[in-house]
């Protein structure tokens, strides 16, 4: 029997969420871990999905099941849940991964309930492993709990598929191969009026000023070492140069230098960017717990004993007012070299 490892290809207006490609990457790895007859397949629901289906193949989907209908143009929980539930029932996949985005978590929770299977939310580590009392390897889905203080590995023994939502940017994207071969299977899900129990009246683009720290790839944060509210102008310059957003330690928020929206840490936001630059932040535990999972942490601090250096991938002992302007200059120089 074919063991299907499914990935939900999340899209909005025909554009895939990058997490979909990350999931195809991790699904491939999981499929390889079980080794026999395991295939990686993508599930795509929307309207005019032709191009996206091909893209999914390039990212490693061996088969893409496409539900393509004007009724699915924009995401609505019930029709999408109905479609996925029907597909799962038809093909009986072994594992089903969905991005832990707002859309993905909304959808996965409904689909799992509708099918009657287990779902592990917001996972950060996935593996196939032996579990006592079961013949086949199970999906070991690991996730943080209790505010990130504990990690728990969850299994779903008796129900299929084993579902998990996976936090974006935890896994690296599958490589894109232009010549990858795969099959596109069109599925028709009859939509009756009672399935459309909601209608989208309008879309509102979020105003640019709202801070999206949680999903930022690049964050430049300032701390008490800035010495005052003005210091954030420099932080903003560096953030703009890198295409990142501005974060802050609690001290600066308490001092009124910057708004609470920017606060990273225990009482602020937990972030996990690819690059976190901490400038003038001593590294109180309450700050560290909010950012220590970042992929790369660059800390700039005058005090060589600042605890922030304990979690930094790289630390610079020096005056941030010297280092950051130099850093901006160097980045600009390298960008120019690239274009010129």
């Amino acid at each position, binding site marked *: 029997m074919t063991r299907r490892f499914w990935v939900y290809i999340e899209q909005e207006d025909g554009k895939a969420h990058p997490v979909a490609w990350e999931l195809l990457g991790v699904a491939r790895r999981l499929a390889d871990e079980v080794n026999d007859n395991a295939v990686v397949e993508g599930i795509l629901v929307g309207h005019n999905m032709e191009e996206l289906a091909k893209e999914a193949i390039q990212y490693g989907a061996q088969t893409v099941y496409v539900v393509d209908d004007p009724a699915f143009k924009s995401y609505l929980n019930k029709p999408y849940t109905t479609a996925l539930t029907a597909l799962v029932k038809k093909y009986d996949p072994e594992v089903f991964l969905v991005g832990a985005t707002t859309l993905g978590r909304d959808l996965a929770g409904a689909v799992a309930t509708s099918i009657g299977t287990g779902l592990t939310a917001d996972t950060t580590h996935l593996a196939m492993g032996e579990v006592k009392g079961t013949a086949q390897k199970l999906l070991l889905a690991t996730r943080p709990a209790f505010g990130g203080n504990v990690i728990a590995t969850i299994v779903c023994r008796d129900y299929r598929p084993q579902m998990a939502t996976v936090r974006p940017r935890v896994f690296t994207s599958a490589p894109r191969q232009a010549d990858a071969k795969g099959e596109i299977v069109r599925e028709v899900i009859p939509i009756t009026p009672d399935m459309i129990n909601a209608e989208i009246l309008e879309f509102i683009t979020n105003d640019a000023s709202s801070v999206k720290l949680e999903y930022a790839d690049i964050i430049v944060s300032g701390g008490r070492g800035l010495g*005052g509210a003005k210091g954030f102008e420099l932080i903003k310059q560096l953030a703009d140069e890198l295409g990142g957003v501005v974060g802050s330690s609690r001290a600066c928020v308490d001092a009124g230098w910057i708004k609470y929206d920017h606060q990273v840490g225990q009482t602020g936001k937990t972030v996990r960017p690819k690059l976190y630059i901490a400038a003038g932040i001593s590294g109180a535990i309450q700050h560290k717990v909010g950012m220590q999972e970042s992929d790369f942490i660059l800390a700039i601090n005058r005090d060589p004993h600042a605890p922030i250096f304990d979690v930094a991938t790289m630390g610079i002992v020096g005056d941030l007012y010297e280092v950051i302007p130099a850093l901006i200059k160097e980045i600009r120089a390298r960008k120019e070299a690239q274009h010129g």
Partner: protein
Amino acid sequence: MTETNAPKNDLPEVYIDDILMSLKYFADEHEAHLKIIDPQVCVNCKEKPCIQFCPVGAYRTQDGGTVQIAFQSCVECGTCRVMCPPANVSWKLPRGGFGVAYKFG
């Protein structure tokens, strides 16, 4: 009085923020129970003992010599009300239910 004036460098440096992690607060997002009455008075205050004596380090200076209060970390002891030399702190208790909540005491 040789022994009463122990050198200050005798004091260990303490990261008060780390210590405050042990505390539970119900922070009032709507109302600051501590306020500086006249910012200019702080600018003119040379000593600024509040920076030192506040047991949670809630008082901090900013450029220009003004003083900011991180009222969210206040443990409501009252020292600043009593000891601010120019009596420039407007001191109230947080609204009912807000502020520090000791777990052990």
